[in-house]
């Protein structure tokens, strides 16, 4: 017992000399405060002592006692549900029947009368080792439970922040939009966002925070808020990333960073302008059936270096064409053989479903990834956002 300076032993025996004998035999340990004894004359008193002293580590008990004998006491002790409280029985010489019963009722060990105190000390030490092990296991279990709780909180924060009501803009007939985020067990990093900047401009964002757990969830919340605030200031996508990057670098305590892809779709003209900070390149699904990847220029993630510049790219969506954004949780999804789902598989799927409405498209991808991963554990968030332009 690392923190306890002594062990407290409850000695239960109706023999009047027992207390004197024990105090005498263990006088050195008692004087050095390595051991402390508490005494009871029978099982009933023993239970009283247990409620008086919360820190009794070990019980030394006779079998034959009035009021409540040792075997009945063992039954009572098992009801207390204290797995680290161990009992050593003291039995009459040769009383094998009672010894067997005692062992079956949960006694940890036994010694026989007349007591050999050297042997008793060895038995006590052996019992203590067991007790320490049980307590350590208990501590570790509690620590793990606490970590699990934190991770669940992280996931809840993450899920609560993401807009999940679909159709998102029921009054807008110019486009159809859907998004989904399937969180991995212990992750709190991906997010997507969409909002009208004004009547004509739809802002679309997808992002992936480095790291897991509560720090990642909090950084994700901060990043998302800053990005949206800057976006609603009607900045161009690259200006928006530049400003958000500088904001994040100022606040960045933990060297966290976030990959962000941010686009503005003009729903009158179909013009799609965008900028990319370290995120995996999204796809445009053309009416021709071509799956066109918006190749990344390799510009730096947000939150890494103050003053980073981002470039602007422009494409045009024709009515009927879709824009598909995702995080690397899709391409890096792994199955039991450690194969990656990969971009090739994703592109193939997109090719076959390019005309699908966004919801169907995303459901298909999620299903395909889940089928691929099969019973291996999901290692990262699977996040996607799809917009189909329907024309002004």
């Amino acid at each position: 017992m690392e923190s306890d300076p002594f062990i407290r032993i409850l000695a239960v025996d109706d023999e009047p000399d027992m207390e004197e004998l024990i105090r005498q035999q263990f006088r050195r340990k008692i004087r050095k405060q390595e051991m402390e004894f508490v005494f009871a004359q029978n099982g009933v008193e023993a239970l009283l002592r247990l409620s008086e002293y919360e820190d009794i580590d070990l019980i030394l008990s006779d079998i034959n006692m009035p009021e409540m004998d040792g075997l009945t006491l063992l039954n009572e002790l098992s009801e207390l549900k204290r797995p680290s409280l161990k009992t050593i029985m003291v039995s009459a010489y040769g009383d094998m029947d009672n010894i067997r019963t005692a062992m079956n009722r949960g006694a940890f060990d036994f010694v026989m009368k007349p007591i050999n105190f050297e042997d008793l000390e060895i038995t006590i030490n052996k019992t203590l080792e067991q007790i320490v092990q049980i307590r350590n296991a208990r501590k570790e279990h509690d620590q793990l439970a606490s970590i699990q709780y934190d991770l669940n909180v992280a996931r809840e924060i993450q899920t609560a922040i993401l807009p999940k009501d679909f159709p998102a803009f029921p009054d807008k007939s110019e486009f159809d939009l859907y998004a989904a985020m399937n969180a991995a067990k212990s992750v709190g990093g991906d997010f997507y966002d969409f909002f009208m900047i004004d009547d004509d401009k739809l802002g679309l964002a997808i992002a992936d925070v480095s790291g897991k757990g509560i720090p990642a969830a909090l950084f994700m919340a901060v990043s998302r808020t800053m990005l949206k605030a800057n976006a609603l200031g009607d900045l161009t996508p690259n200006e928006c990333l530049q400003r958000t990057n500088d904001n994040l670098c100022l606040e960045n305590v933990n060297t966290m960073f976030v990959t962000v892809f941010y686009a503005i779709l003009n729903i009158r003209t179909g013009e799609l302008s965008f900028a990319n900070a370290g995120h995996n390149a999204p796809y445009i699904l053309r009416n021709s059936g071509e799956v066109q990847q918006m190749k990344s220029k390799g510009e730096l993630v947000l939150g890494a270096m103050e003053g980073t510049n981002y470039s602007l790219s422009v494409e045009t969506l024709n009515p009927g064409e879709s824009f598909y954004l995702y995080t690397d949780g899709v391409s890096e999804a792994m199955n039991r053989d450690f194969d990656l789902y990969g971009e090739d598989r994703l592109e193939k799927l997109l090719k076959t479903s390019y005309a699908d409405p966004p919801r169907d498209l995303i459901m298909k991808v999620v299903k395909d990834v889940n089928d691929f991963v099969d019973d291996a554990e999901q290692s990262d968030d699977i996040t996607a956002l799809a917009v189909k332009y329907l024309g002004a």
Partner: protein
Amino acid sequence: MNCEVKTIVDVTVLSLSGRLDASNSKEFEDQVVKLIDSGQKAFVANLTGLDYISSAGLRVFLLLIKKLGDKGYIHLCCLQEQVKEVFDISGFTSIFQIFDDEDSAVEA
């Protein structure tokens, strides 16, 4: 993940092999921070054996290069294709000097 350390004159060469992700990134970070605190400033990370790097791994490199600041550097060499891709897409290629072989990295 394994990290072997050797010194060539005043350059510390770190040879990484295996995977660098959230499960071991702190260990790697602590190992290199210790070297930096003991006075090492010039580093070359030889990634010949590094099969995979996650964002947690990238984060350690970012942290180290920020810690060194103007006083030191970390050059990278021998990146495997998929690792180079991660550095390219995330833009980390722009903040590290990357070489094809260890000798060039050490000489720089």
